[in-house]
C-alpha cells in the first residue's frame, strides 16, 4: 500500500471517514442523520456480505438505488471491493432493463422492496437477487464484520468504479465505464471549484441512475460534507420539496435546469427560502434565460450560479462557468466555460483536422476525466475514445463528444452550438432519436418511421414520431413503446404518413420532415 496516496476510492472514503467520524454524512428528509463513522462501518459490513456471496474485484453489482444509507453504503462497498456498481432505474421498462443487464452482466442485483419496481417483472435466471430492505439482509448485516477489507489495497486507480447507462443509437443503451482515477480527479476538481468544506450540505435531487448524481455523491461524501437525499416523489411536488429543504438548509444544489424551471414556474419559491444556499449549479441542458432571470431574482447576490458541462463519458463535468448578471441581458445560451484544469479541449472539423480559429467544430476532450470506454462494447469504444489527432508519438486518448462547439481563443471559453448527430436532451437525459426509431421499427404493423425533435412556436420541445403504417392504433402503439422506452423517451406526437421523404442517398430526410411539420 502506498502511504499518503489514496489511489482508490475505498481507501479515500475510509480516510475521510476517520477524519470526520462524528460529522453527518447523510442528512435525511425526516431529520435523522448518519455519521461518517456509521456509514463507513455499514459499507464495510456490506462489503463483507457481498464478498461472502462471491463478489470479487471487477464483478458488476447492479443496484436499484432508493437513496437510503444502505444503498449509498452499497456503492461504497463496491468501491472497497473493487467491484463495479451500476445504478439502474427501478422504473425502467422491462425490455430496456434486460438490455442493460445483458450489457453489464451483473453477478448480483441489489434492490429495494417496491411494487412498481421493474425487478418484479424480471426473470433473473443466472443472476442472484438481493433485497436490501428485507429483514434477512438487516440481520445478516448486523452480524457481519465491520473492519475494512484487506482486498481494498489491490484496487488500483485504473480499476472501473461504476457503469452509467446512457441512450444508444442502435437501440441498446451504452454502459459508460468510469475508473477510480477518473473520479479521484473529479473530487479534487469539485473541492477547488466550489471551495467545498465539511460544513457544506449537498442536495441529492438527481436520480442515482442519472449522471448528475455523480457530483452529488462524490463531491459531498469524499470531502466530509453532508448529502441530503431527495426521493423521487418529493421532486414532483416542488412546494413540498422546498419546505423540506428549508429544514435541512442545503448549501449546494445541483440539478438539471428543468428542475429549477419547474420549481420557479410552479410558484414554489419565495425570497426567504433556502437561506444557506451559496451555490446553485446546473447542467445537462441549456437554461432558458427567461426562467434563469426569474430564479436569479429570488436569490439576488447571496447565491452563485454555475453552469456546468460534461458528457457522461468524461466523469460528469468538464467545464464550468460562473454566471454574471450581464449574461441575463440577452437570450443566448450561457457559455460552457473554459475547460477545467488538468483537462484539455480540441475542436476538429468534419475531416478530423484540428481547428485553430473560432470556427464551429466537434469537441474532443482529453485528460484524467476521460472514461475507460463502453462496457462490453469495444467497437463503440473505439469509435468514441480515439487517439488525440495532435499526437503521433504515443498513445493519448481523447473522447469524441459529438457536441459542436466554438472555442473563443481570447478567454478559452467554450460555446455550445449544437449536435453532430440526432442526440437531444430532455430533463438533462440524453436521447438518441434512433433508439426510439429502433423500437418503432420492430413493431410488426409499422413499415417505416422517423423520429424528430422540434422546438418552435408550433411545437414546444416535442418528440414527434412520423410513422408509415396501415394500422393507426395509437393505443396499441403506446402500450408497446412503454415496454421498451423510459417515459422521457416516449414521443409526444404521432404523425401518420404514406411515405417518408428521402434524400439523394435514399436516407430519410429529417430536415424535410421538420419542414413539412412546420407547414
Amino acid at each position: 500500500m502506498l502511504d499518503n496516496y489514496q489511489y482508490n476510492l475505498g481507501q479515500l472514503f475510509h480516510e475521510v471517514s476517520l477524519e470526520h467520524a462524528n460529522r453527518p454524512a447523510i442528512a435525511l428528509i425526516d431529520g435523522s442523520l448518519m455519521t461518517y463513522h456509521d456509514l463507513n462501518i455499514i459499507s464495510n459490513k456490506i462489503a463483507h456480505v457481498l464478498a461472502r456471496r462471491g463478489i470479487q474485484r471487477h464483478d458488476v453489482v447492479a443496484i436499484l438505488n432508493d437513496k437510503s444509507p444502505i444503498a449509498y453504503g452499497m456503492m461504497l462497498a463496491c468501491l472497497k471491493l473493487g467491484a463495479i456498481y451500476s445504478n439502474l432505474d427501478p422504473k425502467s421498462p422491462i425490455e430496456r432493463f434486460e438490455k442493460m443487464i445483458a450489457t453489464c452482466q451483473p453477478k448480483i442485483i441489489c434492490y429495494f422492496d417496491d411494487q412498481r419496481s421493474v425487478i418484479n417483472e424480471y426473470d433473473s435466471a443466472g443472476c442472484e437477487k438481493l433485497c436490501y430492505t428485507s429483514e434477512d439482509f438487516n440481520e445478516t448485516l448486523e452480524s457481519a464484520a465491520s473492519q475494512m477489507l484487506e482486498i481494498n489495497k489491490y484496487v488500483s486507480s485504473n480499476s472501473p468504479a461504476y457503469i452509467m447507462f446512457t441512450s444508444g443509437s442502435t437501440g441498446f443503451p451504452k454502459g459508460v465505464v468510469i475508473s477510480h482515477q477518473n473520479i479521484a480527479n473529479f473530487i479534487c476538481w469539485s473541492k477547488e471549484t466550489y471551495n467545498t468544506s465539511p460544513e457544506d450540505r449537498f442536495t441529492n435531487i438527481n436520480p442515482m441512475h442519472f449522471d448528475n448524481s455523480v457530483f452529488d455523491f462524490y463531491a459531498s461524501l469524499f470531502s466530509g460534507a453532508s448529502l441530503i437525499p431527495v426521493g423521487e416523489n418529493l421532486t414532483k411536488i416542488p412546494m413540498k420539496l422546498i419546505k423540506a429543504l428549508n429544514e435541512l438548509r442545503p448549501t449546494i444544489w445541483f440539478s438539471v435546469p428543468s428542475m429549477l424551471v419547474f420549481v420557479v414556474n410552479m410558484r414554489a419559491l419565495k425570497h426567504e427560502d433556502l437561506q444557506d444556499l451559496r451555490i446553485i449549479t446546473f447542467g445537462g441542458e441549456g437554461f432558458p434565460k427567461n426562467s434563469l432571470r426569474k430564479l436569479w431574482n429570488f436569490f439576488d447576490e447571496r447565491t452563485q450560479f454555475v453552469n456546468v458541462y460534461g458528457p457522461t463519458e468524461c466523469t460528469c463535468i468538464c467545464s464550468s462557468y460562473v454566471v454574471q448578471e450581464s449574461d441575463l441581458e440577452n437570450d443566448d445560451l450561457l457559455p460552457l466555460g473554459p475547460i477545467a484544469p488538468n483537462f484539455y479541449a480540441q475542436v476538429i472539423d468534419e475531416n478530423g483536422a484540428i481547428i485553430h480559429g473560432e470556427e464551429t467544430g466537434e469537441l474532443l476532450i482529453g485528460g484524467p476525466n476521460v472514461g475507460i470506454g463502453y462496457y462490453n462494447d469495444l467497437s463503440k469504444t473505439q469509435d468514441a475514445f480515439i487517439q488525440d489527432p495532435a499526437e503521433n508519438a504515443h498513445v493519448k486518448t481523447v473522447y469524441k463528444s459529438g457536441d459542436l462547439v466554438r472555442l473563443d481563443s481570447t478567454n478559452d471559453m467554450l460555446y455550445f452550438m449544437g449536435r453532430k448527430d440526432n442526440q437531444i436532451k430532455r430533463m438533462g437525459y440524453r436521447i438518441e432519436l434512433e433508439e426510439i426509431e429502433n423500437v418503432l421499427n420492430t413493431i410488426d404493423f409499422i413499415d417505416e418511421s422517423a423520429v424528430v425533435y422540434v422546438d418552435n412556436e408550433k411545437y414546444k420541445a416535442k418528440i414527434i414520431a412520423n410513422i408509415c403504417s396501415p394500422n393507426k392504433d395509437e393505443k396499441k402503439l403506446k402500450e408497446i413503446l412503454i415496454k421498451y422506452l423510459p417515459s422521457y423517451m416516449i414521443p409526444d406526437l404521432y404523425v401518420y404518413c404514406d411515405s417518408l421523404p428521402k434524400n439523394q442517398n435514399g436516407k430519410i430526410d429529417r430536415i424535410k420532415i421538420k419542414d413539412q411539420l412546420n407547414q
Partner: protein
Amino acid sequence: MEDKINDILIQVFNLNEDQVKEDLGMDDVNNWDSLTHMNLIVAIEDEFSIELSGDHIADMVSFDQIRQTVSKYQ
C-alpha cells in the same frame, strides 16, 4: 369541467381514455414526473384561464384533487 380535465390528463400523460379514473394519482402514472406535472399545470391554467397558487399546485396530485382545486377557481 371534468371532461376538459380528462382530456388534458390523456394528452399530457399519453394515457388511454380508459386509464383516467376518479382515483388516478401521481403514483399510478409512470411518466408523472416534474416535466409532465409542469405541462399539466400549464395546460390547466390555459384551459381555464386561471393562475394557480403554489399551495394549490402542491395539492394537485390526483384526478380528484385536480378537479377539486380547479373548481375553487370557477
